[in-house]
């Protein structure tokens, strides 16, 4: 198990006092695949570098199991790492690249080469062993980097945006393969990525970082369905969640979300404490949780269609309220069969209970998550 306790990393020099990582706590179980996800500058790579030992934390403790590793050199941590640039040694052949970590452990050449060959077979690059890195394609270089990281049977595998230099289709294959290998070897793996789809698809748990802090650390579906705050809600999902400014009000016994363009009555089982009334909130609904409905439906909200985008598998419809008072357009996804043209008047409703309320007086915390 890996434990990070109150990790702080402040860089000195010009940006002195600027904390790249600011009080980060994280626990990773043995054999788990964890993704660190966040926008650039959120501290995810810094965290990975501290796990590798290439950076020393300013404060806090890192444990591998029971062992405090704060001051353990990278070479003594038994980690494998794949870099974004792959960082292959250009003067060595693929075989020597993969055997390099083994040779550094004083393993005899014969045995190191045999193990390099074994590892290369897992990654299906055993036919490339005699080539130099410059003679390989991007995908092959990536595999060599993986093989080099895995050849020493590391306790922990660290992946620093390993797929960002591959083209979209290759990415999907490599992603599946990394996951498969990770499961078969059972190696604890931490991946840093800014690609949410990648993070959600590949990992057991995802830690979403922003401003050097973990916003939410949970399984992918949980992050998606129960975002803890506004940042997580708006960061995850494509197309992104609709977020409408509003206010909670008590209208003759009914609790209602009042926005500039429409009102939404909270269902019976989502009734809130009275103290929430009058609070400024953001009303969040994912585009696929909005459906086009009949005019007579009691929850129907009339909307004017502004724009229709074809996504192939469906349509992305952007609507606004009939008076045009809403500041942001609302996005919803429909299937291809529905005939919708810009300028049409349609009626939409929120799928049962599929909405989020974020308390703007409390840093955008999700109201339902906390209560």
């Amino acid at each position: 198990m890996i434990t990070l306790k109150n990790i702080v990393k402040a860089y000195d020099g010009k940006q002195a006092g600027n904390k790249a990582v600011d009080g980060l706590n994280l626990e990773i179980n043995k054999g788990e695949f964890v993704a660190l996800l966040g926008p650039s500058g959120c501290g995810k790579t810094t965290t990975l570098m501290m796990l590798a030992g290439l950076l020393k934390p300013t404060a806090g403790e890192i444990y591998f199991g029971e062992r405090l590793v704060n001051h353990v050199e990278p070479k003594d941590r038994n980690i494998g790492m794949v870099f974004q640039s792959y960082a292959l040694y250009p003067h060595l052949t693929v075989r020597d690249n993969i055997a390099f970590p083994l040779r550094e452990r004083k393993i005899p050449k014969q045995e190191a080469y045999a193990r390099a060959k074994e590892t290369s077979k897992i990654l299906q690059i055993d036919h490339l062993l005699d080539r130099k890195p410059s003679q390989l394609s991007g995908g092959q270089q990536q595999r060599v980097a993986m093989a080099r990281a895995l050849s020493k049977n590391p306790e922990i595998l660290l992946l620093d945006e390993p797929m960002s230099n591959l083209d979209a289709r290759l990415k999907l294959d490599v992603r599946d393969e990394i996951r498969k290998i990770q499961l078969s070897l059972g190696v604890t793996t931490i991946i840093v990525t800014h690609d949410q789809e990648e993070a959600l698809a590949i990992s057991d748990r995802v830690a979403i970082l922003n401003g050097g802090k973990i916003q939410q650390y949970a399984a992918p579906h949980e992050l998606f369905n129960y975002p803890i705050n506004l940042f997580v809600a708006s960061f995850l999902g494509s197309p992104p969640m609709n977020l409408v400014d509003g206010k909670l009000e008590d209208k003759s016994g009914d609790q209602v979300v009042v926005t500039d363009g429409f009102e939404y009555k909270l269902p019976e089982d989502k009734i809130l404490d009275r103290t929430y009334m009058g609070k400024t909130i953001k009303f969040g609904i994912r585009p696929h949780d909005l459906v086009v409905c009949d005019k007579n439906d009691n929850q129907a909200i009339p909307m004017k269609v502004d724009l229709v985008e074809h996504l192939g598998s469906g349509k992305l419809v952007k609507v606004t309220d009939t008076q045009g008072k809403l500041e942001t357009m609302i996005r919803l996804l429909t299937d291809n069969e529905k005939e919708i043209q810009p300028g049409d008047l349609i009626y939409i409703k929120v799928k049962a209970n599929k909405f989020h309320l974020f308390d703007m007086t409390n840093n955008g915390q999700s109201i339902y998550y906390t209560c």
Partner: protein
Amino acid sequence: MSTSTLKKALVHTYMTLFTLPIAAMIVWYFLAATMNFTTGQFSLDNFSFFQEPVQYSGVKLPMIWPIVLNTMMYSILIVIIEACISVPTAYAFSRLDFKGRRSAMKFLFLMRSFPGITLIIATFFILVQMNLVNTYLGVLLVAVTGSLPGRVYIMKGFFDEVPWDIEWAAMVDGCTRFGAFKKVLVPYVLPGIGAIAVFSFLGAYGEWFLFKLLIFNDDMLTLAGYLSKLVTKENQIVNYGLITAIGLFYTLPIVVFYIFTQKIFMKVNLGGAKQV
């Protein structure tokens, strides 16, 4: 004639006109060495310096072969010393964070552009005080000191090009910082080391001023100094045939050396890491 051929012809004429003087000089150089101008016949008389010490109208110089040995020893020693000092120094300037790095870097740049010749009188007196005049050590010290800033500066550029990822990868793979330097970074910047080695060699091979100034024994000279001794102020007679013959002997290794080493200058990045 079409316009394109006309253009080509013009360009070629133009280039030929400008190349001609240079070509003429080289041709004359070979002729002067291998022709007896009084008889107009081909002769190898000028190359007798291979067999016997040079001696004509007051100029008396030792046999050339020990001088050749001196030259080779001196040049190779300079290459080794300069490479061994400049490579780690450049690494430190490029990668390590130490106190005074920026000011030292500025000083290095200043020293690189500073005309060292203006310091030569002071240098001479210092060497006299240290009893290093007329010793190879003295020449080596002055020569290395003079050229080191430039070498370090070039080498630093090569180290700056090495992605951090490569060094980090080596450290994760079990190297110490020094191990990463030795096993990964030095091979990575090998073309750069080759380049400074060539510069050092050419510089040392052509060094005559320091020998003229600091070495008083003719048998301690190197080829460049030897060549310069052929022309002296005292006698007004200059033996052009002999000078060009020895000059040819002196230049030939450099030309050959250049043909074999020019590839190093062309091949700078070997690839292997994508530049992000």
